[in-house]
């Protein structure tokens, strides 16, 4: 068609998706909210991978970050606080054709959702889990979250958070059957994009810990990392998150880290003097529950009827 050689036309996909095809309308986060960055990164990834919008399942819990699905043109599931992961697993269980993404907050995932967080890691079904960590409860207007820094004042702990924060990436690395953990920051869109691309390419549950700015309730909380890029440690490896020149120029502090090395990943994960970003860990061999859950899918109707009849006959008098 259009005078192209016939072999070429085979390469032309039936539909071509532009960014607009993933646009779900005006996103209603506060001005300057880090969540916008993730939205455009994911839209770009979908466009680049040419995922048809109807094949996307964007799942979330409740929180500012969990508004994410509303701003994508895609199938979306804006569920209950803390419960995004069980829903996402249920979706994936019998719909391997769907591209499942989860948007969850530090409260949603690590506080009320903590049990599911650990178990989703065990199940290791194929999906990308973006943990938007603004270190505070945003939607409910500034309460302490498990990632709130010690001493940071919130409405429930005006005298400062009582306990040291948990680190999302470090904690995930301790979970059973963990197969992919990366960390990135909302304020470096290139690294964010590349990290999510890497996560998306992984088959299994890819946890991405994203430091997300919340100018409204936790402004300046990441200033130590933002204002001093030298305190960021850029992980690189041929199997890791590819870092382009710009990113390498910004983050001069770099370390070669083999993402198969779990012990090293754990040592690197906990932020201290430095904050490591990039791929911390990846194990492509970790067993996946979705490989088991799909068994029997597409069994023909007649065959199913026959199987059911056989089951019933077991109870015949």
């Amino acid at each position: 068609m259009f005078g192209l050689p016939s072999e070429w036309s085979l390469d032309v996909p039936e539909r071509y998706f532009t960014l607009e095809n993933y646009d779900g309308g005006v996103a209603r986060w506060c001005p300057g909210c880090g969540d916008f960055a993730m939205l455009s990164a994911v839209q770009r990834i979908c466009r680049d991978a040419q995922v048809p919008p109807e094949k996307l399942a964007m799942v979330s819990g409740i929180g500012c970050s969990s508004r994410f699905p509303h701003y994508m043109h895609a199938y979306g599931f804006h569920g209950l606080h803390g419960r995004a992961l069980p829903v996402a697993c249920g979706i994936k269980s019998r719909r391997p054709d769907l591209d499942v993404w989860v948007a969850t907050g530090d409260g949603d995932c690590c506080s009320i959702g903590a049990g599911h967080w650990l178990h989703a890691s065990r199940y290791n079904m194929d999906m990308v889990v973006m943990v938007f960590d603004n270190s505070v409860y945003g939607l409910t207007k500034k309460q302490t979250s498990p990632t709130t820094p010690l001493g940071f004042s919130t409405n429930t702990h005006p005298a400062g958070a009582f306990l040291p924060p948990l680190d999302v990436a470090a904690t995930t690395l301790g979970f059973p059957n963990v197969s992919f953990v990366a960390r990135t920051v909302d304020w470096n869109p290139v690294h964010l994009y590349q990290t999510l691309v890497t996560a998306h390419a992984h088959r299994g549950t890819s946890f991405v810990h994203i430091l997300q700015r919340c100018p409204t309730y936790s402004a300046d909380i990441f200033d130590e990392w933002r204002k001093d890029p030298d305190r960021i440690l850029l992980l690189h490896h041929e199997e890791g998150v590819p870092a382009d020149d710009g990113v390498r120029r910004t983050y001069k502090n770099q370390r070669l880290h083999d993402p198969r090395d779990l012990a090293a990943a754990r040592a690197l994960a906990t932020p201290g003097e430095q904050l490591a970003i990039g791929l911390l860990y990846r194990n492509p061999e970790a067993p996946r529950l979705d490989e088991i859950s799909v068994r029997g899918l597409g069994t023909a109707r007649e065959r199913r009827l026959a199987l059911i009849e056989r089951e019933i006959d077991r109870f015949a008098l």
Partner: protein
Amino acid sequence: MTAPPASGSVTEPRRAARVAVDERIVEIVSDSGEGAQKAGQTFGTVCAKLGNGVWTVEIIPAEIKPPARSRAGASGIRVRFANRPVTNRGERAHLAVAFNEQVLYGRIANGAYGPGTVVLLESKWADDEQEEIRTQYRDAVADFRAHGLEVVELPLEAACLEVIPDPRVGKNMFVVGMLCEIFGRDLDKALDEVRAVLGRKGPEVVRLNQELVRRGWAFAERHVPFAWDVAAQAALEPQLVMNGNQALGLGILAAGIEVVAMYPITPATSVSHYLGRALPAAGGFLHQAEDEIAAIGFAIGASWAGKTACTITSGPGLALKTEFIGFATMAEIPLVIINVQRGGPSTGLPTKVEQGDLLAALYGQPGDTPKVVIAPATIEECFHMVVLARRLAEEFRTPVMVLTDANLATGVSAFPRPKIDAAWLAPEPDRSAWPEGVAPYDWDAETGLSARPIPGQRGGEYVVTGLAHTRKAKVAYDPESNQEGCDMRSRKLAALGRTLVPPVPHGAASGDLLAVGWGSTEGAIEEAVDQLRAEGLAVASLHLRFLSPMEPGLAEIFARFRKVMTIEINYSDDPQAPLVDPRHRRRAQLAMLLREHTLVDVDCWSTVRGQPYGPGEIAEVLRRNLVAPPAASKRGAA
């Protein structure tokens, strides 16, 4: 009558002639692990195959391995069989076979035996080496006799020793042989059954157990001083025999449900034990989630993605699912929720029966959550109502709750083999493009119904949410959107309600007393009504299967009776209790619904003893509640 046993010579007739009776209730009780349940099931199956109506109920101890010879440790089975269909556990047992005397105490406390019950009791304890045990045994036997039980002491284990070295695990089949002889059942049928049940354990096991059956037969002929006959008529149609939980599991298969997500909880777990093998075998997936919340979340995810799923639970698990049930109602996600009720509140009585979750099913969620709630009354209905539930869930885009109970769960009975209809299977999710311009909640103003886009359908992209939303699934906080959504969801129940037909009373069309029930009590209530009608009383019963929406025509039916009362297995204040009067009485759950619904002064009788009701007990209650005819009552009025 059948051929004499292969082994064992014919002895002097040692008893009166075989007595023909309409029905018998037999229990086998023992310490746990002695195979009493297997024996009862085998004998029950033999009876069912011959064409008796049969109902078996497991007797389950509270502990996993209670100590031997303990009162609370009674483990076993009750088999009620008759010359007509049997729908409930009945009353006192006619015959009990017991492997020790202590376990009988537990059953006596439960009211399972009384004067006239014959007990075939293992006698070896009389000569036990421990004096304490010998004394216990003698005392108990004297005790039982003083209470009117007819105790026949028999050396059961000793008789088995001739065949097997450790009779502890073999005497159960010996008892099957005895029972077959006592009731004149075909010995070959029993031997076939042993082969069917034990076949996969190898020929030697089968041979030994068949030999035990034969020995039991011979032993009974010689030592049991009575014999009964319960007439049987082979069924014309093919029959299935199973318990209610297996029926639910089969119903799930027959409904074409591919995903079941659950978390273990008594007495619902055995559905998943069945499905653990059967669901994958039929091409589906059983997910044992990390908890009940995750289980229903997983099921909702699968349902939303086009594979209408099922979650199964009981009381405490239902409580945990409360939030997600509200979500599924709000977001209009089809879902089948099976709740096998147990004794409550809280952890309560995990293995015992109660019908205490009716109001929680209807009203447990904050806010207005109209959903469909149905309750099978029989084991057969456990099967069919799952099929129905899946279809209602999809048609009405809503969760459907199926309420069964521990009584149905563990009761075993036969019913006609359903002819599986391909239309019962859930259809494959629609993969065609979504029609342009149609909103994701394209509510029909009359019925509230709408079709739903399924992920993968091009052009149907939308975001489902538990927040108030418009037809376009957009979050909306304006006053009218929420009102419209609530209206539409409620309207669906009205639409479904309009398709239902009024239930038909069992017994008198009008009269003095109408007993209303729901769930597993139907058989016992109807049998009670039959008894009273045989006495000439103008009573009837009505059994409800749809609790939400409520079945139509109730007020009209109630109006035909002088008094209406519910019979339920849940809590109500005893009207005689201190501080309680009609104005301050907490009533049984269905009674509350019916009062609100009809404004008829519906009374109730209910208990929370964890026991299924027998027909005699219900008949007694109804008799007590018969309202005196108007002439008499006028005199009584102030």
